[in-house]
């Protein structure tokens, strides 16, 4: 069961620079385990120690976000295309929280 996987820039250090790799698996969890055999370290950047998908990584099967397909349990079919992207997120919240905390110390 061949699955095409698109690797984002930040993770290409694990794939020798390749942006498109191929692997196998019946589910996203399976696929990541197999990928890690070929590209050690990759899985650890995507899956937390508790075994969930990192919050700031987006994984898609074809055009769909796996969060809506069962996350790591999402099923794969032969010929599916998986895309991994770093979520782009951030903001002033932590800064504001730190400032508020600092002001209580004065």
């Amino acid at each position, binding site marked *: 069961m061949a699955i095409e996987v698109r690797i984002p820039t930040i993770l290409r250090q694990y794939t020798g620079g390749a942006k498109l790799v191929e692997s196998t698996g019946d589910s996203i969890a399976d696929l990541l385990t197999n990928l890690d055999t070929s590209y050690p370290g990759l899985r650890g950047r995507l899956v937390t120690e508790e075994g969930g998908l990192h919050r700031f990584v987006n994984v898609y099967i074809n055009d769909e976000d796996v969060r809506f397909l069962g996350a790591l349990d999402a099923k794969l079919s032969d010929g599916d295309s998986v895309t991994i992207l*770093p979520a*782009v997120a951030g*903001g*002033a*919240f932590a800064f504001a929280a730190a400032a508020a905390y600092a002001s209580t110390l004065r």
Partner: protein
Amino acid sequence: MLCIGREVLDAIVAHARRDHPDEACGIVAGPAGSDTPVRHIPMDNAERSATFYRFDAIEQLKVWREMDDRDEEPVVIYHSHTATEAYPSRTDTSFAGEPRAHYLLVSTREPDVAEIRSFRIVDGAVTEEPVRVVDPTVDPSAVTTYMFGQSPASVDYECSSGH
């Protein structure tokens, strides 16, 4: 150093003003490896928040694919801070996933002056860099409506030869 066209910067600031008091976010795509921001793409802030932003996952996939097809990359990733200074917060640095991008922050806390700063964020380490506005057709004095975090706060006519 970030070299950015006046028109692109104006479009980013206009987007940030439009979405104020929510944080605005988006990217400027450019040819891969060129380090030149060309195509401004405002993105939806899926969080619709005054203190947090997150690209909508499906919109991001569409935009990233389109860049891939056009052999582009995100040269600039920008967002606005609406009540605090234009400096990356701890949240920004922990989530920065594009080491080659310039992280541009626009603060809209002052209604008349947009504070603009640019940063590289690699492995959680933040390094500020100068911003140069490139536009030979504009009167340099017009730039004084922006406040840059670092000098030179001026129009640079020779930007492309600087790197």
